[in-house]
Structure formats: C-alpha cells, structure tokens
C-alpha cells in the first residue's frame, strides 16, 4: 500500500510521455492530462488520510536501504502540500484549456504545453515527497527546467527578456544548492534527512551553521525571500496567465517547504532564528511597499506574493509549534488565493486586453461576475475576517506574541502593517479597475496613448497585440466559460478553506508537532520502510 507514495511522481511523468506521443491531437492531450492530474489528486487525498492516521508513509525506491538509496516520504506536511498543490494544478490546467480553445480554436495542438506542465507537476511532487537532499535537488531541477520552458513559451521578446533573468537566477541558486549538498556530504557522509538529523547535531557549531546558511541561501532564492527576491516581480508578469498562476502558487512554496523541512529536521537547535526573523520582517514590508507603488495588476500581485512569503518565513523563524502550524496553514491558504488572483488577472486581461490600472475601469458594472471572483480572494488575501487569510494571519500573530522577544514583536508589527498595506494595494485595484467609471479610464487611456507617441518603439507592440486579441473596445467581450469555471472552482476552494479552517488548523497543529517531534519521521525512514 505504501507504494502509492510513488504515484504522484510517476504518474505525471508517464502522462507527459503519453502527451508527447499524442502530440498531434489536442483533445487526446487534454484528456490524458486531466485524467492523470485527477488521479494524482485522489492519490494525494488518500496519502493525506493515511499520513494523518497511520504516520508517515515511506517507500524506498528500488528496495535500496534508505541511507544509500532514494526514499520518498509522505508525512502530514508533505501530504497536505501535495494535496493543495495538485488541486491547484488541476484547476489551472482546466483554465488553460479554456484559454487555449478560445484563442487558437478547438483542435489546435499545444504540443509542448501539456507535457511540460505535467513534468512541472511531477517535479513539485518529487520535491514535496523526497526524503533526502539530493532527491530534493533533482525535484527542484525537474520543476525549474519545465518552468524555464513555460516562462519563455512562444519566445516573444518580452518573455525572452524576463525569462533570461529568471533562468540565470535559478541556475545560480541550483549551483549553490549543489555546493551545499557537497558540503553536507563531506561533513556527515550522508544526504538522507533522517540520518542527517542525528549526525548534524554532532558537528561543531561552526560547521553546522555554515551548512545551514548554505541551504538557507539556496531556498531563500527559490522562495523569493528579501533580499534575494528581486528576480520575481520582474519575471512572473510576462508569462501566460495560467503559467504565472501556477508559478505564483507553487514554486515559491516549494522553497518555503524546503526551508521548513530542513529547519525542523536538520537544525532544530537554531542559531539563525534572529536572522530569519529579520529576513521575514523585511520581506513583508519591502514586498508590500513595492506592490503599493505599482499600477499594473499582475505586478501588484507579484509584489504581494513576495511580501506574503514573509508571513510563512515568520512562522518558521519563530520555531515554536504554534508558529509552524500557522505557517503551514498560511501556505495552504496562500497557494489557493494567489493562484486564484492570478487567474482572475488573466480573465481581466482577456476581457479588457490590459491589466493596467490606468486603462481599466467600470468592470464592476460591466462584469459583475468577474468582480465577485476578484473581490472574494482579494479580501481573503488582505486578511479580512472571516476568510482564511485572516485566520492564518491571526494564528501567526498569536504565535509571534507568545514568543515574548522584542524581535518577534517587531515582526508582528511588520505583519500587521503589511496586512493593512495589502488591503490598500488591493483596494487600489478595486477602486480603479472595478469602481472607477469607464469614461474616466478611457479619457486617461486616450491621453496616455497620445503621450506615448513621441519616440517610443513600444507602440508597435501595442497595436499588434490588440489585433491578435480581437478584443472589442465596447466592453461587450464575454468571458469564456472554460476560463470562468476553473476560476470559480478555485474561489470555491479558497472559501472552503475558510469553512474547514477549524479542522485544518487542528491538522496543521498535528503536522507541526510531528515536525518538531522528529522521531516519527526518522523511525519511518530508517526503521521500517520498504
């Protein structure tokens, strides 16, 4: 029965192969991708149940013993991450069908998109399940390489420009990760998490601090923690809406997951908590100040993404069970909400052919449905009661106050300020895109068009784009059902998180206890297994 732990990694890879075989038929590709991802969602749900009731589920790939071979482990944290991420991936996949069909006709094959998307999903699952550092590296590489393809999809000028930055930064972080693995192996002779947890404790503190710093640097680049976050707001907004959505939801969270896993399992005696708390506070505040200054919905969302990474890091940095529990809850909440918002931004872009706040207006009257779909997750993100965003922030703030150190109070203050500023940034989007009368926006838009005429090469791109999109300026553009329904599903998921917040918080508390106890995980990997 434990063998099902393998499925979330193997199935998407298999599906990717099948999609390549059926590359000529768009319909076959769609059926395969959906079937595979739906299966993975089911498997993840089963894993979550089993991990909660019977302890961590392990499997040693190929029957090698855990300390030399590769093992996959699904404990409560992994299983929850896996379930949330696969549900989100499935919804985004459905959304991309809607968009693809609308733009390119029912039978146009998107021959690269589906296999790459499935490989990305396999990489994410592998990273969540892996029980050793090197397999984690491989998981990261799988998801990164497919993300390189997805972010430069189509190879247009803007995407090549922003993709280059993303790719170079990711490559460097991977090399740092390799150096970290080499150092860990040199110091301890193993890369298995469970074995490491015992051996790192025996190392001199300088060595273990060095290892911890190396690993943290790597994961902080991947998770976009300040000051290593500058790459994110520049590279995400240019990609297609479904790609940005799935990146925003998943990729940075894999980094946070890796931080949680290594901090709790390998370095429980944490000397770097002060550093992490500062990083968390700065990530929150600097990120949200960036969002406040922007005037494009996608860029605002990218900056709030960076900023809210700070909340999760804050929970981890506290090191208490309550902090961890809050952080895990916040990850689940944030994956759903951030993805939903990016999908809605995609819908806005589809409808109005821009996400620029200076040109949008009157959407609340023209598209009430869209407004609701934006409003609910936006308020959720800002942390308005009774949504899950509020509950997650409340849990984190409580954990911070219970910590009784002045630095924790500073971070709590930063968290509250960030929450307010998030509300401000979101309200700005709401006021200008949805409530501002359309005529004002048109006037502004006309002005800006006139103003941009002198000496600008970008104007040509603009006209070209309007023609490819065939969007009528009279605002009569109807939103395709194929894009609306998946977005609605995710909005429903984010509301569902609020409804089940009680049991979920109890679950994350158990997950945090399990992480801090460590023994269940170690016994499951090294003791039994097989």
């Amino acid at each position, binding site marked *: 029965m434990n063998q099902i732990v393998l499925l979330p990694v193997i199935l998407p890879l298999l599906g990717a192969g099948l999609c390549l075989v059926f590359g000529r038929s768009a319909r076959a590709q769609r059926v395969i991708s959906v079937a595979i991802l739906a299966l993975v969602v089911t498997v993840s749900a089963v894993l979550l149940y089993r991990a909660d009731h019977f302890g961590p589920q392990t499997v040693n790939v190929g029957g090698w013993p855990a300390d030399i071979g590769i093992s996959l482990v699904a404990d409560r944290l992994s299983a929850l991450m896996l379930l949330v991420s696969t549900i989100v991936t499935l919804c985004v996949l459905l959304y991309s069908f809607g968009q693809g069909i609308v733009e390119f006709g029912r039978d146009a094959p998107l021959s690269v998109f589906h296999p790459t998307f499935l490989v990305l999903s396999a990489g994410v699952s592998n990273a969540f399940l892996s029980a050793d550092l*090197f397999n984690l590296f491989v998981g990261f590489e799988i998801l990164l390489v497919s993300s390189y393809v997805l972010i430069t999809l*189509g190879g247009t000028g*803007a995407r090549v420009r922003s993709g280059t930055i993303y790719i*170079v930064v990711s490559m460097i972080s991977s*090399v740092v990760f*390799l*150096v970290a693995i080499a150092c860990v192996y040199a110091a301890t002779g193993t890369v298995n998490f469970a074995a490491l947890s015992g051996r790192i404790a025996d190392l001199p503190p300088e060595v273990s601090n060095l290892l911890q710093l190396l690993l943290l640097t790597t994961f902080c680049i991947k998770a976009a923690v300040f000051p290593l976050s500058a790459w994110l707001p520049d590279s995400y907004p240019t990609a297609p809406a479904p790609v940005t959505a799935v990146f925003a939801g998943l990729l940075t969270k894999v980094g946070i997951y890796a931080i949680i896993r290594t901090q709790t399992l390998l370095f429980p005696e944490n000397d770097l908590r002060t550093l992490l708390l500062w990083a968390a506070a700065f990530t929150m505040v600097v990120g949200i100040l960036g969002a406040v200054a922007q*005037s494009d919905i996608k860029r605002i969302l990218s900056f709030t993404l960076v900023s809210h990474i700070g909340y999760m890091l804050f929970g981890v940095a506290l090191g208490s069970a309550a902090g961890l529990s809050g952080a895990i809850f916040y990850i689940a909440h944030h994956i759903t909400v951030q993805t939903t918002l990016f999908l809605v931004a995609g819908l806005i872009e589809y409808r109005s052919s821009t996400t620029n706040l200076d040109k949008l207006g009157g959407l609340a009257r023209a598209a009430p449905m869209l407004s609701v779909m934006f409003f609910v997750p936006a308020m959720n993100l800002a942390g308005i009661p009774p949504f899950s965003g509020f509950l997650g922030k409340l849990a984190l703030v409580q954990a911070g106050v219970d910590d009784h150190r002045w630095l924790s109070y500073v971070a709590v203050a930063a968290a509250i300020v960030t929450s307010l500023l998030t509300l401000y940034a979101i309200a700005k989007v709401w006021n200008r895109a949805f409530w501002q009368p359309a005529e004002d926006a048109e006037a502004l838009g006309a002005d800006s068009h006139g103003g941009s005429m002198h000496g600008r090469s*970008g104007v040509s791109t603009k006209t070209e784009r309007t023609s*490819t999109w065939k969007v009528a300026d009279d605002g009569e553009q109807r939103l395709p059902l194929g894009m609306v329904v998946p977005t609605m599903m995710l909005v429903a998921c984010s509301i569902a998180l609020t409804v089940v917040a009680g049991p979920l918080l109890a679950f994350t508390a158990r997950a945090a206890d399990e992480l801090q106890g460590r023994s269940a995980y170690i016994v499951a990997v090294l003791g039994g297994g097989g």
Partner: protein
Amino acid sequence: MTPNLPLVILVGVMVAAGVTLVLERSLTRILIGFVLIGNGVSVLFLVVSGPAGTAPIVGLSDEPMSDPLPQAMVLTAIVITLGVTAFGLALAYRAWQLTGHDDVQDDVEDDLIRRRAEQDETSVTFDEADAALPDEEGSDAPHHREIHEVPATTVPEALDADDDTQALP
C-alpha cells in the same frame, strides 16, 4: 578526511572564473561562466568523495574502493547542467534572433525610471504644489512646469508594451 589541496584550489579557480563571467552582460558569457561553475562544483564532489580507490564494485579487489555515492550524484548534476546549458544556448540564440544581440536587458522598472530621469519628468502622483520648487539638478521652474503639462502617463504605456498578452502558442 584530509582533502586533496590541488583539487580544492582548482575548484576555487574555476568557480571564481565562472562568477566573473556570470557577472557579464552577454548571455553566452553567462552560460560559459555557469558551465565553469558547474564543472568546478563537480570537482568539489570529487574532493568530497575522499581519497581515490579502486572501482566501487564489491568483490573486485581487497583494496579500499572509492565512495560511489558522490559519483552517482555528480553524474546526475552533470546531466542536469548539460540540459540547462542547452536550453540557455537556445535562449541566447532566440534573443539574438529577436534583438541582434544576446545581452541581458534591464528590469522594466529600472529602465523606466532611468528614461524618466533623463527626460526630467515627474511621476503621475507628483504633487503640483511642489512643482515650483527646483529639482535636484536645480533646473528652473518654467522648464519644469512645461514638462508637467504633458500628462506624464508614459509609465503605463511602457509597462504595457513589454507585458505580453499573447497566451499559449
């Protein structure tokens, strides 16, 4: 474990040279730098695996054998570096096709701020009341106000031109 000093120095030199190249503007040079760093790290794994021994096959000989695990890891790392480099080269080629060079370009925002600084423009939210004050370079007020009358809405346009709405190909 006593590390092999020449190898350690080799790693240092390769990574240092690689870092220098990565700091360049041209994507091709960045990639060569990345390959150098990657190879340096591969050598680091050799250092990590301890003294060289016989081939790691059980029962082949009685002498101490090499540690096979770092070798397995380094093989995986080499393959991954190869794939990523190939992708990077394709990307550099595409950039060259589109723009005639493969220089990594500036952040849109940076570009925007620089362009507006050159034109001595103010932002959309700039306070009118303060406009009479001379700016940092001490340029006179009339000149300043003249610029200000043209609605300073180049900001959204520039962002917009770069942001690409074409979805899946």
